């Protein structure tokens, strides 16, 4: 028996497997979801158990505008991917710009909300259990939005410089998968914190 690779290479039927990028991102999403679930559980578990005020009902307002912005950005990033796939690089740049803009509005809105909560309502992470769980859960989501924005901005930069071609569709698709996940998490956070938790 020869000592090298001895399995003969026969002419097999076509052999295609899922893209490793998409599989990897799907795995990351599962792991991240588990982290978010733990923070959501902590939020729900401590609802109404704060020993002092302020309570969610006192200080929280529905962030409808920025939520619409974030949800729309899922659509725009999807358009960016399909534009790139069809080789429309100009359109891809436009859709990416829109995505970054909408994500930016969301982050700015969260920043404004936090500023008001801290300086007007006097709610910090140290104040009570509501502050603890609110800032950690919303902050965890916001940090994911920030990471997504950095990545999207990089993609935009490459797109503007004409370096993003249809060869890179799959990579942009992987990134868009992450962005959809960030959006989906916001659906849960929005419902738990601002709708049912109030």
């Amino acid at each position: 028996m020869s000592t090298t690779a001895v399995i003969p290479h026969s002419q097999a039927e076509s052999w295609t497997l899922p893209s490793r990028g998409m599989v990897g991102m799907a795995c990351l999403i599962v792991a991240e979801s588990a982290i978010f679930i733990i923070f959501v559980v902590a939020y729900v578990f401590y609802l109404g158990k704060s020993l002092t005020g302020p309570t969610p009902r006192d200080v929280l307002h529905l962030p409808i505008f920025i939520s619409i912005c974030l949800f729309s950005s899922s659509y725009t990033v999807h358009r960016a991917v399909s534009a790139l796939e069809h080789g429309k690089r100009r359109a891809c740049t436009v859709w990416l710009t829109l995505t970054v803009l909408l994500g930016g509005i969301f982050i700015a809105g969260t920043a404004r909300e936090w500023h008001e909560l801290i300086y007007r309502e006097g709610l910090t992470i140290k104040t009570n259990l509501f502050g603890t769980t609110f800032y950690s859960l919303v902050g965890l989501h916001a940090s994911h939005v920030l990471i997504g924005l950095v990545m999207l901005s990089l993609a935009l930069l490459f797109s503007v410089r004409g370096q993003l071609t249809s060869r890179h569709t799959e990579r942009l698709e992987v990134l868009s998968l992450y962005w959809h996940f960030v959006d989906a998490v916001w659906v849960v956070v929005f419902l738990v914190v601002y709708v049912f938790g109030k």
Partner: protein
Amino acid sequence: MATQTPTTAVLDQASAQGQRPLWLETVQDWVTTVDHKKIGIMYICYALIFLVVAGFEALLMRIQLAIPNNTFVSPQTFNRLFTMHGTTMVFFVGMPILFGFGNYLVPLMIGARDMAFPRLNAFSFWISAFGGLLLYFSYLGGDGLYGMGGAPDVGWFAYAPLTERVFSPGHSTDYWTLSILLSGIGSIGTALNIVATTISMRCPGMKLNRMPLLVWLYLVVSLMAFVVVSPLTAAQIMLMLDRYAGSHFFDTQAGGSAVLWMHFFWIFGHPEVYILVLPAFAFANEIIPVFSRKAIFGYPAMVAATVGIGFISLSVWAHHMFTVGMGAWANTFFTFATMVISVPTGIKIFNWLATLWGGRIHFTVSMMFAVGFLFQFLIAGLTGIMLSVAPFDWQLGNSYFVVAHFHYVLVGAILFMIFSAFYYWYPKMTGRMLSEKIGKWHFWLFLIGFHLTFDLMHVPGLLGMPRRVYTYEADRGWAILNMLVSSGAIFQAVASLLFVSNLVYSYFKGAIAGADPWDAWSLEWSTTSPPPPYNFAVIPTVGSRRPLWDLKHPEDPDSNYEM
């Protein structure tokens, strides 16, 4: 084939003719490598170093407990010893050694040239290694402002609110948290890599139902790691926020809950045991058939049982919390779930027995360890069922019975199977056989030491000896038992030294192994030992579950019998 062999020869000649590299070049080669085999070996060596360190900590504890009213170590040191022993063994021995073997074997077994994300692989290794160093740096840096010095002393499950800043000032707990956070990131990275490799990198013909069972089990383990390690990461983030940002997650003074930490920790903690034991099953699935000279019995049942364990293990965590007082319904549920998980586990044991049945069994050292594993894992499972009964657990929770039970799993099952895996795959990794003679000494000494220590350890537990006490009075009737338990530890230490010397000795003097010393059937044995950096000169194509059998027996290929 005749046209393929020269290709390899030419490629290998290039490296063979080069001069011997300078040692600094060798170091640079290993530090910057993204080769899954080198990373796998680094994982294994790093785990072995920590195995020796944490084993030494266990020895110190056994010396302290050997006689009543001993003053060999102080109570403070004892607290640090059991914390460091537990944390090290789980996070810096168990996890890296399983990922080490996974890294090495999974791509070879599915006919791939590397993992799906080689650089992520290197990153995961180095961040885990850094976590381990951070944990041990606490011996130097843990002092903090209050001179509360030294290593973490909060226990390996670090119950709140002891870990809050008020009760654990200084930095030792921070080192504990950070090191686990980092090792968790590394674990997720490697798990992600294994899943992506298994799904996207299989060679032509390697359908899911033809994958070696080892690869199947690693797939399940990695999927479990996502949903199991991540909650721990989340809990560590909360603990860090509590300690540094002044939040109140586990601060009972501000309404925080200590029980919530318990839930978060054990949601990780119990499935973690299955993450550690499934790779041991994976090794058994490869080793037992080869040394029984039979194909594995019940391949689909094995896969189904593994997936079943994966799911059920997510619903048993609170059996660690029966003594907390969760109420009758919760106790009933977790008792039931814990008992149910023994069903798929039992299926596995029966399948291994059926594989042995009627086989031509070869008692190599590897097989001896595997048979030891079968018996000991059965006993460990039986004491597990005893402890799953809530009222029984109320009596024996936090006693040495529990310690004996889980060491029976971790040492009697997992460590035995890891030893078995060493004897089986060492020839592939180094090109040389481990000495069977030293190996037999290693096996028998370790077996005697193991049973002396961990069989007898059940008894002081039944007699009421609580875990984590640094000493005990002479009139309790535990003294002679503890002395015997400690003397067993010495047998194990000597056996482990033999094992390490065998690893070193055989690396230089062992018999040359050749590509396929065991006459095995999976793809890693089709390439040279050690394999070239590219694994396979030509990507193989497989037609059944035992591709090498097909090759050696073209008149009677496995594919004839598979659906």
